[in-house]
């Protein structure tokens, strides 16, 4: 049944984005807020606001019971989790199902299966998707050293319940494993409640490429092309683009098919992303994981295909047959997204919440800004430091990079420190222009160069 009223169980720009999509479809919106967000843009846009708890997310946005109770008590028939917070907690999908509320996302069992990275590897292998050589569960550092010998260094050791680089490290020799294994496992235990570790061969100088898909829950899955998210800092994406210009068409075609095969094998429902490592030199790709939510970087796929993915999420959850034929979805343009964060690059990218005294996003053809900020907005200290996404679209990569540089130059934010200068620097760098970057480029090449240049500037010519 079509969704009539949805609870928005998130904050910031994605709450605004979800409300816009709902409004375009004539769906009523109830915005769940913490006390810190009661005057937010999303709260003003929604038909109703419910204060679910105090500012700390553990007592508000991270409490599935409060969120579902609020949805039920306000007569919502659906709940959109956005990304982050509870979006990939099977518990939320289960509670929604138990209370007759449509969860805008996959089923609890799908979230559970894919959230366990070892199970996800098994599912991928069964669907014929290439995996980097790796192991099953590893008991301890000793077993890891033995396994690494067989797989060959360098290896990456990951938490089965993990994500976002937590409980994960790269080892180039046995001593790396001996010094880091227990620490990583303990971190995984603490953050995810599960210290299970496994190992994969580490692919040097790889790109991060991912495929956006939507499934109808009956086995039909359609993809919306791929995104290249290789500009990363500490496994966090900084700049994302679509399509991946560094990938030849025959590899791209295979990659899309692998993503579709994987998710259709489990009758995937709603939007999801299949992530891969791409070794451009060998034209080889390897499965990493599936994200069972709408992602931060979804707008670049929307820009190049012309499909509103969040609206599609609501419609597919409402039982509409919205998936077009695959051959009707065309990637016709190029788009790049920059994440603008309230953080100070000169102080280890420390988050810098505060009041925005002047907010002037760029405007013009091919420029989209997804944000919840405005003049006078107080960025609260309790949550993620992302304050905007700048998405620029043009005919091809070269034109998009040129337009992006102008848009970044025109973006004015005063009152707090942001990463805008770094974004301007990255997009002006010859390696970015030549598209020869990889996932460690920002940390291993760009930031060290920046530091050296700054030192020269400070010391001055003698």
């Amino acid at each position, binding site marked *: 049944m079509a969704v009539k009223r949805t609870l928005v169980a998130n904050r910031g720009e994605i709450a605004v984005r979800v409300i816009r999509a709902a409004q375009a479809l004539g769906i009523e919106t109830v915005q769940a807020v913490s006390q810190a967000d009661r005057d937010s843009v999303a709260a003003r846009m929604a038909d109703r606001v*419910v204060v679910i708890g105090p500012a700390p997310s553990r007592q508000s946005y991270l409490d599935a019971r409060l969120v579902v109770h609020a949805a039920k008590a306000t007569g919502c028939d659906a709940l959109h989790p956005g990304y982050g917070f509870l979006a990939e907690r099977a518990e939320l999908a289960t509670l929604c199902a138990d209370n007759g509320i449509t969860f805008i996302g996959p089923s609890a069992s799908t979230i559970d299966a894919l959230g366990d990275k070892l199970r996800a590897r098994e599912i991928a292998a069964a669907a014929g998707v290439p995996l980097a050589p790796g192991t099953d569960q590893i008991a301890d550092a000793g077993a890891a050293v033995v396994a690494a010998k067989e797989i060959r260094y360098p290896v990456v050791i990951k938490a089965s319940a993990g994500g976002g680089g937590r409980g994960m490290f790269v080892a180039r020799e046995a001593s790396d494993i001996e010094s880091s294994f227990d620490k990583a496992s303990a971190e995984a235990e603490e953050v995810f409640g599960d210290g299970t570790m496994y190992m994969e061969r580490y692919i040097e100088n790889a790109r991060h490429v991912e495929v956006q898909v939507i499934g109808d829950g009956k086995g039909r899955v359609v993809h919306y092309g791929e995104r290249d998210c290789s500009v990363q800092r500490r496994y966090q994406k900084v700049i994302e683009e679509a399509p991946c210009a560094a990938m030849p068409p025959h590899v791209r075609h295979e990659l899309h098919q692998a993503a579709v095969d994987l998710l259709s094998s489990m009758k995937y429902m709603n939007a999801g992303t299949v992530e891969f490592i791409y070794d451009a030199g060998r034209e080889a790709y390897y499965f990493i994981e599936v994200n069972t939510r709408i992602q931060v970087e979804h707008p670049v796929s929307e820009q190049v295909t012309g499909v509103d993915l969040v609206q599609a999420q609501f419609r597919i959850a409402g039982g509409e047959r919205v998936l077009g034929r695959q051959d009707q979805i065309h990637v016709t343009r190029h788009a790049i997204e920059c994440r603008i964060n309230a953080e100070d690059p000169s102080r280890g990218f420390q988050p810098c919440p505060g009041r925005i005294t002047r907010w002037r996003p760029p405007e013009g053809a091919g420029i989209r800004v997804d944000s919840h900020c405005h003049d006078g907005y107080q960025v609260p200290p309790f949550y993620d430091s992302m304050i905007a996404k700048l998405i620029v679209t043009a005919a091809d990569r070269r034109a998009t990079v040129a337009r992006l540089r102008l848009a970044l130059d025109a973006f004015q934010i005063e009152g707090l420190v942001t990463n805008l200068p770094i974004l301007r620097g990255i997009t002006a760098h010859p390696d970015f222009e030549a598209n020869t970057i990889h996932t460690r480029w920002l940390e291993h090449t760009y930031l060290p160069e920046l530091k050296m240049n700054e030192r020269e500037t400070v010391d001055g010519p003698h």
Partner: protein
Amino acid sequence: MTKPSAEDIETLVDLFNQSDWEEMHLKIEGLELFLSNVPGARGPRAVALEAAASTGETPHEPAAPAPVVIPEGMVVVCAPNLGTFFRAPKPGSPSYVEIGQAIEEDTEICLIEVMKLFTPVRAGVAGVVHEICVNDAEMVEFDQPLAIIDPSAR
């Protein structure tokens, strides 16, 4: 910040009367003040509530809770979390407290239920129940006023 006194409110009303404003809507520390020089005007929350009522739908409505005015010297007991408000321990049993009843600091005044988990709320102050701000079985938001206690009337 302390709660505005009666004099503060008088000053605000005077300021409003002297201004050329049409409406003033003020929220301080749990007090909500709506002033208007338009005849028949009502506060935005009251309007929202009436609009909801006029459609004849259930209380399961996207309507915000009504504003609560706290008389000077009284103490308001607020919801410790979001949930459903219950005045009695079980359907059909007598309410925990009635208006005018003398209570102690640890007297239970209501239950709040979230997903079948019931948590009693204590008064936190001794006095007399002056007002119950929420109807039975209604949803309350975090920090929403539940009851007003008069600590001096004992």
